[in-house]
């Protein structure tokens, strides 16, 4: 599947109807999501034929992108039932097979070495401090091949240091810097739209 086609399909997905600010629910736009998963597959072969988990899947964008690029099995995990309902509808609309699990990432207990790759757009930790690091720490314990994640560029040095020194990552690489379009979604958003600089990371556990 070509990148443009993938981006088109992801652009048609339903997103959060009533986003919850305390969970930092922001849709991963089709532009970023398509490039993220396309790179994971084309540069690293981390998607096709693999078992992929989407941590904090929301409405399922990254997991769905993985399924579209040939992941053998996809599991999306989120704490919010409304998002999971939308995610389920998105999957049905595209006639894909994606499993979902309602669970808090902090209490998740996935046994074994079954998950190859984790893809995620975790909370940045603006609401619940340290949420981004919780997601990163857990993902490095679960994935056996690679973790793809988005974090604010302003946290780059902290992320790299923590991943390598504290979470025992073999490598932590910024694949590219992207602009995350955040539309005016919440009452506290003053501007119509804002660009946040985010890094696309690839970690090897």
């Amino acid at each position, binding site marked *: 599947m070509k990148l443009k086609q993938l981006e088109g399909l992801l652009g048609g997905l339903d997103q959060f109807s009533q986003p919850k600010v305390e969970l930092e629910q922001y849709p991963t736009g089709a532009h970023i999501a398509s490039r993220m998963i396309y790179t994971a597959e084309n540069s690293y072969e981390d998607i096709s034929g693999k078992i992929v988990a989407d941590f904090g899947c929301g409405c399922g964008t990254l997991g769905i992108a993985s399924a579209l690029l040939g992941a053998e099995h996809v599991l999306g995990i989120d704490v919010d039932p409304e998002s999971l309902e939308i995610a*389920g509808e998105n999957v049905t609309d595209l006639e894909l*097979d994606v*499993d979902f699990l*309602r*669970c808090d990432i902090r209490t998740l*207990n*996935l*046994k074994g070495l*079954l998950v190859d790759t984790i893809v995620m757009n975790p909370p940045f930790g603006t609401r619940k401090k340290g949420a981004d690091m919780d997601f990163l720490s857990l993902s490095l314990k679960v994935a056996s091949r690679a973790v793809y994640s988005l974090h604010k560029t302003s946290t780059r040095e902290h992320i790299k240091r923590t991943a390598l020194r504290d979470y025992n990552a073999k490598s932590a690489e910024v694949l590219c810097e992207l602009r995350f379009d955040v539309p005016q979604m919440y009452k506290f958003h003053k501007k119509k739209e804002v660009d946040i600089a985010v890094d696309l990371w690839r970690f090897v556990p």
Partner: protein
Amino acid sequence: MRLLTHNMLSCNIKGVTNGFPLKLEADKWVTKEVDLNADFLRGVFPKIEWPALVAAARALDYGDLPEQADGSMLTSEDFLRRFHHALLELHVEEGALVCPETGRKFPISKGIPNMLLHEDEV
């Protein structure tokens, strides 16, 4: 929920040491055919908890998996087909996952298990 997912899930209640495998109680399930990928099956086989898969498949009235399995069976197309079917083609829609140690039930609704813990379980 596919049985491949079931094979990964363990009870996450604080203090539980024997939370795997979760017992599967299924009220509704469906079969969805999907292409068999032999390379994938051969690669995933060593990571699968076989008895848990057999028990879960039986809960879905699928009794065609051998009680015990080893790597030499992976050359058999017949075995691969049964393994593939149990692992990837059976989808639980409604039911529950039961913790073997505490008996706590995690409901499965519309194919999605709810493993969100109560405050006193964390």
